[in-house]
């Protein structure tokens, strides 16, 4: 029982990272209607920027904030330069461009910072929290940061004019444009925020999986699984989905021999296919209706 509880808590902690990536995926999906396959590599690149700043002697939290700001700007730039010109292109073009971005960021990170695995500092320390060993300080810190982020996002979308404008632009671009919202810039803003959320997730998971250019592929896959499980049209659903995926992954790894340990990605595959087949709108998403 104690093991079960411990693994569930650890799963929740990793689940927060999947939740953040899922959230970033959903934000992009809401803004442009496509799944960003480069989301993981964007987060990885941001984490490398943070690592570099810390190597140069910047205090952790200043590096943290600077990285979030740089990532936000980077996300906006990518949207403006790469995605704006193809906004009406078919799905295949988008997928190909995302794959191109993925290759560029991955190779660039390897070129600048090489492919060796690097340790990444944690601001919370790794001592067990409250001395009972159920959860360590970094895991607790991850959960706290994610909750803060969620509260911030909720407040932003619920109570600010820009947040309202962004929701309107995602919901109905044509009407939004008619009431004077600059839909294009709202999309860019969504990209920037997705990049910033990804950066936070990257910096939180890096102390656990260690820093290297390929660190995010698995995390991205779980993020997709979480986003699909929760529903691609629902930010809250994405977070819940990410947490569930984290717990399922951890429990399967602990209690199912062989399969849980060696086939972790396959679990994500099964979750994705099962949800898409049985409940394509996810737990909290809206069903997609087509007019024929």
């Amino acid at each position, binding site marked *: 029982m104690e093991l079960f509880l411990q693994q569930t808590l650890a799963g929740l902690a990793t689940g927060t990272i999947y939740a953040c990536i899922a959230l970033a995926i959903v934000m992009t999906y809401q803004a442009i209607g496509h799944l960003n396959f480069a989301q993981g590599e964007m987060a990885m690149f941001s984490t490398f920027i943070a690592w570099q700043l810390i190597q140069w002697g910047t205090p952790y939290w200043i590096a943290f904030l600077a990285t979030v700001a740089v990532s936000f700007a980077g996300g906006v730039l990518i949207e403006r330069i790469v995605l704006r010109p193809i906004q009406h292109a078919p799905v295949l073009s988008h997928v190909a461009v995302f794959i191109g971005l993925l290759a*560029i960021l991955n190779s660039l990170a390897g*070129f600048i910072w090489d492919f060796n695995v690097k340790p990444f500092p944690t601001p919370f320390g790794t001592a067990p929290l409250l001395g009972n060993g159920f959860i360590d300080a970094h895991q607790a810190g991850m959960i706290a940061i994610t909750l803060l982020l969620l509260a911030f996002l909720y407040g932003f979308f619920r109570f600010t004019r820009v947040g309202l404008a962004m929701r309107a632009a995602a919901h109905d671009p044509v009407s939004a444009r008619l009431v004077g919202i600059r839909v294009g810039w709202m999309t860019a803003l969504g990209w920037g925020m997705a990049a910033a959320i990804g950066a936070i997730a990257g910096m939180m998971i890096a102390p656990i999986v260690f820093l290297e250019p390929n660190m995010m592929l698995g995390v991205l896959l779980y993020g997709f699984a979480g986003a699909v499980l929760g529903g691609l049209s629902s930010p809250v659903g994405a977070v819940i989905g990410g947490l569930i995926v984290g717990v399922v992954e951890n429990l399967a790894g602990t209690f199912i021999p062989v399969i849980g340990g060696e086939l972790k990605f396959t679990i994500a595959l099964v979750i994705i296919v099962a949800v898409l087949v049985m409940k394509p709108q996810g737990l909290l998403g809206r069903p997609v209706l087509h007019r024929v």
Partner: protein
Amino acid sequence: MLESVPEPAVPDVLAPSLIGRNGLMLALLAVALLLPFVVQNFLIFQLTLVLVYAIAIIGLNLLTGFNGQFSLGHSAFYALGAYVAAMLMDKVDFPYPATLPVAGIACFVFGFLFGLPALRLEGVYLALATFALAVATPQILKLSPLEYWTGGVQGIVINKPDAPFGLPLTQDQWLYFFTLFVTVIMTVLAHNLVASRTGRAMMAIRDNPTAARSMGINIALYKSLTFGVSALYTGIAGALGAIVVQFVAPDSFTFLLSITLLVGLVVGGVGWIPGAFFGGAFVLFVPNFAESISKGLSGAVYGVMIILLIFVLPTGASGLVRAALQRLRAHKIQ
């Protein structure tokens, strides 16, 4: 809202008179037959791989270009084909040509079964499910209970076949001719499939599923069948690839391979079968070229090229060829 793949290359321009086209094909084939006698062994090996990739890309094209379904998971089918061939040769001493049909059938069944749930997935959702399949594949291949068969992380090493009947050919030359033979058969079959009633049904589903259904086309059946046939092509390419490279290992079949095939498809032109050869040559030679520009940045150069291609030439090689033919024809009329 119908967001489908780019329009296929217009057939009337790309299909000139029957004699002209057959003549062109024969000339190309003659060049392909003579090439291995004039170039170095290593280049022969590379050309063989171009053909292998071309078969896999034709498979992907049947699915994406002609049926409008996406796949980022074709590395899984390629891996299955390669492993089936390698295991048959390693464990039960199968002759290598006989592994191709077995690998093809195994992949057809797997593709058909994967295509069944995929029926309910459209566009970006299918891309997602197949993405997960591609990422999961290397892990499945490394699974310890299967290690006796798959060789685990180490993979399987295969012997390089000699030319049969005492033909005076080097091993590389023989493999090239063997691959070329398979490629020609597969290309002709794909061409005939697309031109048939079945092919028209596939394209009708791509262009307008609702209209296709109301005309009596069994969408579920055709979609899963196309998935199966596409996997079959890619599986045969995988088996050929295993024989040519003489080695299979889980890390040769990562998500990167799926990207490679997708890039080849986009470069060659979606919905144009001969484009696969342009695509195959591109994905084999351009990364080398990128590496020669800058060793560490090869991936970045590759990525920039993909994005530029989507921006500048979204129809790929098929668009270029079509434009060239149109200009030629305009010239003739004057």
